[in-house]
């Protein structure tokens, strides 16, 4: 995978204001044309999972595989839900609280975990994810245990459309923050650590510190995704925060392309949104997903995004050579 540092090259596609203004307008008027609440619901879930998956990849860019990421979504969800349901806090305050607790836990475990690298880090974070779920089941009085927590106070009532605009704004801000970090000094430093921690330390990079910063930011956004999800869905259960849920995030990232910022967004869209839309195919979704993953892993090492990029640059090359050969 090639880590591109867009701030060094001339402004890339991501920075074209016209494209983003157009996309924003389309997204703003979209609910006017969609009458089905179910469809709006799918889009809302897509927004939540985009925040979750992009923040998952942010931690990955620092060379860590955070297999507790869905668990951190759970921390945000349960903390916020419990604070609102049992302590009467308004969701507008309980959501930031849940997100901050998720970030705090991320920082706390970051210190001991920063000693471990690669597969050892992945393993310890996997166990931590399991620990979170055990805690949820152990404190069933507060969390509802395996049966799930119901009747969580909603953030914006029970209609889907207000949430659409809420999640649209939240996703835009989250992506802006994470993209800004990715293309600036912190992102460069994360990628440097991921490529060689030895070389990174030799130029003065504090590896532990930057890995903890990556985890903290990733967990913050996982917490935001979880907490908003809890007050949108009003019901939360442990399955959404399990190890399998994290593996799904990993699959979204790998299929979309880990080397690019929009990779996880493409992955969520292809493997979560599209199968949801094709409801008749639903029971085949696991098989189709598995087939897509295999195809990507064997044929597209840079994911779908990488393939599209290669194709575009191939087209550009072709166009250039045409033009030069046309010239006398």
């Amino acid at each position, binding site marked *: 995978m090639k880590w591109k540092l867009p701030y*060094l090259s001339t402004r890339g596609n991501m920075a074209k204001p016209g494209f983003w203004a157009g996309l924003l307008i389309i997204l703003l008027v979209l609910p006017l044309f969609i009458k089905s609440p179910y469809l709006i619901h799918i889009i809302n879930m897509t927004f939540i999972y985009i925040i979750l998956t992009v923040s998952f990849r942010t931690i990955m860019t620092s060379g860590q595989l955070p297999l507790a990421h869905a668990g951190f979504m759970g921390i945000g969800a349960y903390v916020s839900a419990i604070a609102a349901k049992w302590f009467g806090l308004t969701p507008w305050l309980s959501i930031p609280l849940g997100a901050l607790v998720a970030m705090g836990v991320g920082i706390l475990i970051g210190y001991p975990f920063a000693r471990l690298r690669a597969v050892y880090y992945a393993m310890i974070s996997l166990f931590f994810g399991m620990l979170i779920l055990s805690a949820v089941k152990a404190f069933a009085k507060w969390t509802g245990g395996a049966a799930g927590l119901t009747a969580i106070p909603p953030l914006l009532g029970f209609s889907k459309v207000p949430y659409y605009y809420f999640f649209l704004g939240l996703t835009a801000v989250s992506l802006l923050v994470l993209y800004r970090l990715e293309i600036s000094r912190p992102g460069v430093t994360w990628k440097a650590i991921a490529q060689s921690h030895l070389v990174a330390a030799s130029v003065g990079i504090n590896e532990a510190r930057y890995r903890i910063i990556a985890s903290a930011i990733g967990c913050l956004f996982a917490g935001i995704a979880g907490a908003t999800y809890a007050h949108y869905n009003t019901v939360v259960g442990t399955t959404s925060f399990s190890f399998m849920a994290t593996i799904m995030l990993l699959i979204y990232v790998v299929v979309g392309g880990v080397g690019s910022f929009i990779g996880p967004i493409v992955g969520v869209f292809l493997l979560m949104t599209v199968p949801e839309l094709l409801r008749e195919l639903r029971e085949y979704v696991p098989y189709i997903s598995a087939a897509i993953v295999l195809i990507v892993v064997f044929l597209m090492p840079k994911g779908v995004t990488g393939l599209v990029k290669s194709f575009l640059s191939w087209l550009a090359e072709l166009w250039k050579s045409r033009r030069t050969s046309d010239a006398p």
Partner: protein
Amino acid sequence: MLLELHKVSKHFSGLVAVDNFDMSIGAGELVGLIGPNGAGKSTIFNLITGVLPVTKGKIIFDGEDITDKRPHEVAELGVGRTFQLNPLFSDFTVLENVVASFHLRPKSSVLSALLNTTTYRKHEASIKEQAMEILKLLGLDKVKDELGKHLPHGHRLVLGIARALAVKPKLLLLDEPTRGMSLEEIDLALGAIERVCQQGVTIVLVEHNMEVIDFCDRVVVMSFGRKIAEGSIDQVRKNEEVIKAYLGDINAA
């Protein structure tokens, strides 16, 4: 003295890799650290830069005790280094490698990067400029857009030096800079080392290649973790202990 090692020892669970090693390096010197394979030369570098913990002894750099400092802290004080086999940020281009290495001076906070403040943008612009200067100085500017992993061996080493220069080092430690290089590549490497020297950077290098050692002001010879000789190259060449270390004890045979 810029760097002083006082009776430094390193034990690897029973094995004594470095034994009561003393060494002093003055500012502006170019010193060669030589010795047979396994003598402990690279271990000395790893002890100075904090990659390995020191078992016994003391390391003073520029008046500060750095014995227990971690690698990034040692770099912050002004010690740059390269590694054997020249690892690099292989998915970054040559320019990106050096830009990423400008972590310390100027330093930007995560928040200023997130908010893209004027100071942050100024810092990044000056970093890019300085990185280009370093690449020009070392003759890497022609390959600045090559990916690290596509670089030939000789360029990899020079890139390692370029990266180390981003730390703005007072002391540069080069671990076998010409290992496995062709004659042409050695010329490239020597040219780079010479130019860094002219900038007033103190250099200690581990080397087997005598052509490189001839450049040094002074050499320190190690064998089995101990210092067995020190002085000018001619002095060391005549030293019996050194001959014994390299060729074996002729009388014992």
